[in-house]
């Protein structure tokens, strides 16, 4: 029998960083305790893990770091429940458990040679960060075509990974468009909702794939814009979230139709989702 999938790997919280101005999202950096532990956790962009706060419980979060960043894992977590609240209050140096990697990942092999359009909204930018960081790695960058990123938040203070956004902005191998919902003093970037900005940017669908993560309402209104640009359902990739417990396709709660988000997802193409009921 394979190793017990319920047992978490102990990791050390080395950084508890307040990511957004409203303080509701923190980014946690967990360090592997040994090289062996790290080897036992081979992951790809798009996968998630169950983070466990001993004494409180476990909760699933998308991995925000990229496998190209060795030694640690990063998660950006909103304060919503028992586990996330405990994490937010956690002191650096505390030991947590991490169980994973779980789920499938963005189809990096199939994406080779293609232009990639990444669209994110709010704090659903975590595994997208992983993806962007992975692609921007010099040894990977050549495998992919043009990289366009559209990222929106309500206001500048709610954008995640501000330092990196700045760095990406200065690069020529990534086309980054950040947008906020309403004008704010001092913001020189674009203003407008993600669907509108997508329409303006009008990414070409030719030899392209769009990856889209965000709140349901953003996805709902961005889809028609992508379709207008010529993206077919199998050219649109989404990452689903549903309540999960086991993360390994057994506890029975995260299914959408006959597929489990935890085991068969969380990454699905729009074409796949069109075959499934809308229970997510």
């Amino acid at each position: 029998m394979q190793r017990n999938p319920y047992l978490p790997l102990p990791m050390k919280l080395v950084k508890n960083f307040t990511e957004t101005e409203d303080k509701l999202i923190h980014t946690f950096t967990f360090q592997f305790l040994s090289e062996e532990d790290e080897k036992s956790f081979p992951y790809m962009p798009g996968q998630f893990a169950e983070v466990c706060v001993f004494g409180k419980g476990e909760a699933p979060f998308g991995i925000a770091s990229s496998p190209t960043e060795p030694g640690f894992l990063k998660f950006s977590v909103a304060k919503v429940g028992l586990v996330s609240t405990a994490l937010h209050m956690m002191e650096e140096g505390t030991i947590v458990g991490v169980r994973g990697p779980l789920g499938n990942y963005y189809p990096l092999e199939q994406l080779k040679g293609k232009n990639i359009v990444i669209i994110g909204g709010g704090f659903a930018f975590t595994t997208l960060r992983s993806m962007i960081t992975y692609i921007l790695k010099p040894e990977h960058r050549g495998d992919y075509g043009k990289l366009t990123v559209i990222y929106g938040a309500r206001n500048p203070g709610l954008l995640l990974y501000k330092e990196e956004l700045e760095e990406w902005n200065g690069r020529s191998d990534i086309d980054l468009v950040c947008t906020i919902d309403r004008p704010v003093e001092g913001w020189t970037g674009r203003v407008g909702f993600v669907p509108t900005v997508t329409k303006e940017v009008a990414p070409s669908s030719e030899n392209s794939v769009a990856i889209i993560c965000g709140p349901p309402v953003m996805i709902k209104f961005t889809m028609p814009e992508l379709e207008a640009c010529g993206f077919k359902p199998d050219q649109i990739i989404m990452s689903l979230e549903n309540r999960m417990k086991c993360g390994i396709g057994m506890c029975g709660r995260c299914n959408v139709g006959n597929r489990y988000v935890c085991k068969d997802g969380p990454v699905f193409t729009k074409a796949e989702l069109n075959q499934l009921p809308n229970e997510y």
Partner: protein
Amino acid sequence: MIIAKNALPGLLDKLAAEYEVYAPVKQGAYSLYKQICNGAEADFGYVNSKIPPKGILFPQSEKLYSYSVTGEGTSLEECVDTRKKVIFGIRPCDAKSLLLMDNVFNNDKFQDPYYLTRRSNTILVGMACNDPAGTCFCTSMDGGPFDQSGLDLLLTDIGEAYVVEAVSQKGKDLAAALALGAADDSQKAAAAEARESAEVACAVNTVGLKARLDVNFYDPIWEKFHEKCLGCAACTYSCPTCHCFDIVDEAKDCNGCRVRNWDSCMFPLFTLHGSGHNPRTSGKERMRQRIMHKFKYFVDNFNATACVGCGRCIKNCPVNLDVREVLADIRGSEARSDK
């Protein structure tokens, strides 16, 4: 082979010395599978147990591991149960349900060591159903009152004795260890007659059911089933194939254990997101999930229906919501694939 009824308590005693033995035990007006210390506790005058024996392999509340955390690290202690068990008198429907559960706990990607360890250490001694209940519909669900699927031994009640058939190698070994005598021809004939005369009166027509479920997710028919449903878990907890669970911590500070408990798709909390969004908002969606899971999704994934026709959900429902009627209505519904 043969076991005389008056020799059975002694035989169970003998088994109990080596195995954890689970057998039907009376509790008021119903029976439950319980661990017995001596053979006299077992009572085989049962139709079937109130709650299925799945809990022996997949307990309602089960410690997965205990932990203690210090500044230096953590220590985790797995709680895998490796004790050898015998379920004595399991009905064929319940034995079949374990074959179905195996698909879940040993899926294409992961293996559940808790269930699988118990499973491989457990011997299933079946009791054929000479008199199936009025709510039994096993023959409609690819089973039957004398079905041997999943069993190691099968016993047939012939009045004064049980005729024993070995189904698997495990069963043969157990029979050899117990030094069971051979059945004579008249005993074998009596068993064959019992098999002939066992009748499952109730039939559920499943022809075209799956095809209908494939296309009627958005059918208005789902509006009506749940109206009387209380949203409790009497059906799912008494179902031998329902396997949903929750994982929680029971701890003081950083020392404690992680526990899994049965959970039910009939509870609103089951799918409630942290954000407050719930993909299954009402009883309608939850009832649909229960039916879809058993009669479509499970078939899609494992090529088998996740129902063995034991009838427990029918008997235990506080408002008499009868799955047989639900299935009949679905078969008669119109195809609707538009959202």
